[in-house]
């Protein structure tokens, strides 16, 4: 028995279907079919939304990857820059240390030269300075 275009008054269970019930069942079936057909197109929209979501997810993935790569690269560059700076600072410190050492050595040399000069001046001056004293000592001995 089909409800498509005929309203048989007997149901499959062997009971008489009143025209009212038959009509109501037919209308019910038609409405469910129409509703379903209309709703059936909705999942396709949902699939499209899903695809859109996928595209967004893909784009977000790429963006995140980009950010990560940029982060890794910039960290590397920054680390390299810091290392360069550290090496330059070490070079400057070494240069300054050498310069200071040289300065100290020069100063020590100057001091030594000065002392040597003073010593020689003193050694040269003492004999003449001692002369009157030596004379006095010689006179005392004669007496």
């Amino acid at each position, binding site marked *: 028995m089909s409800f498509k275009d005929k309203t048989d008054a007997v149901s499959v269970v062997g009971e008489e279907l009143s025209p009212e019930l038959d009509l109501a*069942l037919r*209308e019910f*079936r038609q*409405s469910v079919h*129409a509703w*379903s057909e*209309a709703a059936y197109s909705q999942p396709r929209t949902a699939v499209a939304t899903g695809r859109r979501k996928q595209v967004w997810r893909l784009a977000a993935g790429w963006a995140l990857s980009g950010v990560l790569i940029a982060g890794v690269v910039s960290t590397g560059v920054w680390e390299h820059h810091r290392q360069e700076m550290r090496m330059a600072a070490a070079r400057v410190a070494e240069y300054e240390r050498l310069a200071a050492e040289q300065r100290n050595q020069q100063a020590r040399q100057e001091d030594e030269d000065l002392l040597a000069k003073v010593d020689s001046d003193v050694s040269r001056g003492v004999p003449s300075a001692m002369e009157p004293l030596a004379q006095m000592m010689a006179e005392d001995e004669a007496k």
Partner: protein
Amino acid sequence: MAAGTALEAMTMATAQEIAAEEFSAVVTKHRPQIFRFLLSSTRDVDLAETLTQECFLKAHRHWGSFRGESSAMTWLMRIAINLQKDHWRNRRLQFWRKTRTNAVELDEASDWLPSGERSVEQQLLARERVAQVGKSVEGLSERQRTVFLLRYVEELELSEIARATGLNEGTVKAHLSRALARVRGELGGKR
């Protein structure tokens, strides 16, 4: 020996391709009907779509074991009925989830009633009748509702309903008779 293995592999690949094509044809042919049955059972478009997808996923997994003893539609309907049953069981457990966010009352299905060549008054009356049948169907037991929808919406034969539900024809008849009596009674009470 190697040639034999290669031939076997090719045969298997061909068989798989054929099975995939067959299954694809089954999906195209029966998806709307399965969706419609689940929609009328659950009255929730999103849920009906989810269950339809699950139904075909399950069918795909077990496609190899489908022996063709019943029609593909009956087999799919059986899977859909079981999924729907599981859903109601879960719903019963989650009794506190009373509100259905996306559910559409079956009354709204009456909005989709084709107008045909009826007058406005006739259309209103028809909408009222559809809403009344919907309400009656909602009040049926799960089994009665399934049998009723398979018969009066999906227009399956008693034998097909019996195969899809796993009941014998006599039981199907009894459920259908009770469901019909209830709908008739409520429609009669309305008038």
